[in-house]
């Protein structure tokens, strides 16, 4: 006979204000099997936990039901509590009467009734709970960082410093990411390359770091501590080990008209190229879309001039499979496409540029050598108009992005300030909706742009940009001045919203990591677990999780590294014992479960069974690898013969809950 204890938590007023906890405890006391029932202010507190443990001992409880917050919050806490009192931790059930009851109901009577029903369901289930023992699985002491921008580099450096080997997979020919394209960094105005390139060199020289550039993750298998990842290293048609990065090939290649993505198409590169002087690895790459040799077999100039003999036109993509204990996502961001914003004439005039393009136009290593010149005629611009919030803070996906891109206020202030500093003959206008500059020394920075550099900050928005007679006619509102402005500008700079990199979505699918509607990776808890994905063993670093500036990105990158190190120092992990288990006698060998399993935990084997009249039957049956199974339950639903069951969540237990609710 079961002896069940029920513990109803008030959660201060969180539950008790909407649910009559005393009535719940008294009503549930009458349920079959319940020998003890009480309520308490904070069940998760030290005193609350001791109350539970005492009751277990005193009433020799065989099962515990706690009516409290979501199991996501405190299931682990209470499992430890009951375990310390000598009860198997899986003989505990939680009825969620906070998130699924008190928080969503207003009427106390209804909420109380519902709390009783939820408690009843948990009691019905715990009657059928069996003690489970968690196994152990080993941890591969190597980490994978996906994305080699400042986020990925910082995470990798920190993990490597702690003594663990780490691989960086970068899809471009060089690591460095967006920060390599930035000219100066706010609020200190130090040069981005000067602070980034030493880190890139550190990463390449660190013995624990392996940079796999020009590569993409193709397949991810396994689970926390035991991932197996297949990486496609794209053919760069240059032997990385032989190439010295001398750059002679990039000067001699006759194909000169390839848009240079590093300068956002503002100038051209050759078909064989090194993205920029400080690239890591500093190795040439052949662009197969433009190389005459690869396309038609006629050329071969680069191979002729290469003294190291590094050119290899026959190079193939390479598949690398490695084992990892932890994976860090650091896929970063991209500015949005501006084709929806015709009113700003971005596609009509080369003098309307995005802020990132403006960075290149101001950069000493950029297409103009750092002299600000109009892209259309190469002349010095006198009037510049900056437009903020282009595509940010919009209503719904049709208009743009619903979120604030966070970094634009500060980089626009930086652009405006630098322009005025370098070219005092310019008039600089910034149109803003709100100026958002929270952060250390951030608002002071913006005020400096206004007060010391004379940037005209205008509360309002640009409505229309019309290219006319070599000028950009800007029509805008000045809301505080109560007028409509018309400015003849030489350049218009658009602070385009940022969005997650396009590779993030397919990667999330491979990792079974969750994303929000904007394709930003979701953190396990928005406040308390900000650098972990809800999927165990997957960590988040930088702008893939939400818009972030460089200081925040680096802070999060180090935080993610700390979490990875915390995982990799462990020799083994406790497995979740709630795994799937097939009933071999009922299994008909149909493979339905194998097909739906997202973790590859199910295989089929031929097994002999005793048939009638001393015969032996060979039957094909499912087998689950409990170390790989994550207990998602997809197979139990897919199985047509009901042979698959989830330990701790058996079909019988779920139905008992349903019966209790419907009673």
């Amino acid at each position, binding site marked *: 006979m079961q002896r069940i204890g029920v513990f109803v938590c008030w959660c201060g007023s969180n539950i008790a204000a909407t649910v009559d906890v005393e009535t719940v405890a008294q009503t549930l006391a009458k349920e079959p099997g319940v020998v003890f029932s009480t309520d308490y202010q904070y069940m998760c507190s030290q005193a609350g936990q001791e109350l539970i443990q005492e009751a277990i001992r005193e009433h020799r409880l065989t099962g515990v039901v706690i009516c409290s917050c979501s199991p996501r919050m405190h299931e682990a806490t209470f499992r430890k509590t009951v375990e310390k009192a000598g009860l198997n931790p899986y003989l505990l059930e939680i009825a969620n009467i906070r998130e699924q009851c008190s928080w969503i109901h207003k009427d106390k009577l209804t909420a109380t009734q519902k709390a009783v029903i939820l408690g009843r369901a948990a009691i019905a289930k715990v009657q059928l709970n069996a003690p489970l023992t968690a196994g152990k699985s080993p941890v591969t002491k190597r980490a994978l960082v996906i994305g080699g921008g400042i986020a990925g580099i910082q995470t990798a450096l920190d993990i490597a410093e702690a003594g663990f080997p780490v691989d960086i997979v970068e899809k471009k020919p060089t690591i460095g990411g967006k920060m390599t394209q930035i000219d100066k960094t706010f609020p200190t105005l130090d040069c981005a390359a000067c602070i980034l390139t030493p880190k890139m060199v550190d990463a390449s020289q660190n013995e624990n770091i392996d940079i796999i550039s020009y590569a993409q993750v193709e397949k991810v298998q396994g689970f926390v501590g035991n991932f197996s990842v297949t990486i496609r290293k794209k053919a760069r048609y240059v032997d990385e080990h032989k190439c010295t990065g001398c750059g002679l090939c990039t000067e001699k290649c006759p194909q000169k008209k390839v848009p240079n993505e590093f300068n956002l198409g503002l100038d051209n590169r050759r078909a064989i190229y090194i993205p920029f002087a400080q690239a890591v690895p500093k190795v040439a790459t052949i662009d197969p879309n433009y190389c005459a040799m690869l396309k038609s077999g006629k050329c071969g100039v680069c191979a002729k001039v290469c003294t190291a003999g590094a050119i290899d036109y026959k190079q193939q993509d390479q598949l690398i499979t490695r084992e990892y204990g932890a994976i860090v996502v650091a896929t970063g961001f991209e500015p949005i496409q501006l084709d929806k914003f015709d*009113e700003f004439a971005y596609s009509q005039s080369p003098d309307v540029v995005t802020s990132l393009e403006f960075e290149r136009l101001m950069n000493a290593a950029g297409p103009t050598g750092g002299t600000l010149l109009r892209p259309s005629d190469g002349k010095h611009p006198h009037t510049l108009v900056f437009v903020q*919030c282009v595509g940010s*803070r*919009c*209503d*719904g996906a049709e*208009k*743009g992005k619903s979120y604030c891109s966070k970094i634009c206020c500060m980089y626009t202030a930086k652009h405006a300030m630098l322009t005025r500093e370098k070219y005092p003959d310019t008039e600089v206008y910034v149109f803003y*909706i709100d100026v958002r500059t929270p952060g250390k020394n951030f608002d002071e920075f913006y005020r400096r742009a206004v007060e010391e550099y004379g940037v005209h900050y205008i*509360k*309002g*928005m*640009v*409505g*229309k940009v019309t290219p006319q007679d070599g000028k950009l006619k800007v*029509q*805008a*509102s000045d*809301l505080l001045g109560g007028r*409509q402005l018309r400015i003849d500008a030489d350049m218009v700079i658009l602070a385009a919203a940022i969005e997650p990199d396009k590779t993030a979505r397919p990667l999330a699918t491979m990792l079974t990591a969750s994303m929000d509607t904007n394709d930003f990776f979701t953190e396990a808890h928005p406040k308390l677990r900000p650098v972990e994905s809800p999927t165990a063993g997957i960590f988040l670093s930088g702008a893939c999780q939400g818009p972030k500036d460089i200081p925040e990105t680096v802070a999060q990158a180090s935080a993610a590294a700390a979490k990875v190190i915390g995982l990799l120092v462990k020799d083994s992990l406790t497995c979740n014992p709630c795994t799937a288990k097939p009933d071999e006698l009922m299994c008909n060998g149909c493979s339905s479960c194998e097909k739906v399993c997202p973790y590859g935990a199910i295989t089929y084997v031929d097994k002999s069974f005793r048939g009638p009249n001393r015969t032996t039957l060979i039957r094909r049956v499912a087998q689950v690898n409990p170390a790989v199974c994550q207990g998602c339950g997809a197979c139990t639903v897919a199985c047509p013969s009901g042979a698959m069951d989830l330990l701790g969540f058996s079909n019988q237990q779920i139905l008992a809950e349903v019966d209790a609710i419907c009673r």
Partner: protein
Amino acid sequence: MTDWTNRVQEISGVNPRKCMKCGKCTATCPAYDQMEYHPHQFVDMVCTGRVEELMASKGIYTCLGCFACVERCPRSVEPANLIEAVRLAVIRQQGGNHMKPDQIPGLLNEELPQQAITSALRKYSKGG
């Protein structure tokens, strides 16, 4: 909130509280110079319950209805639809009839079908 404020929101289907006060409607408006109240102002006036003031203004008839503000509003507030609703509210207000029965004899004309006058009365008088 006055009745008219609710009525204008109901007629237009516009929620003026979605406005983030960026001023792009006013920036984009080609009739700005002719207007007494500018697009962002009339969104604000509906929001703060000042619809009667709008209804009394001749300025609402200077809106061209070009829908540039509707097209470019990042928050889908649709200022032009709001102003059209204010115009409709003016037409529909009780007592503010544009035509009264005692005007009819003066309008009678052999070439004008009586049906037209009846229709006009129905359309332009909305009760006492």
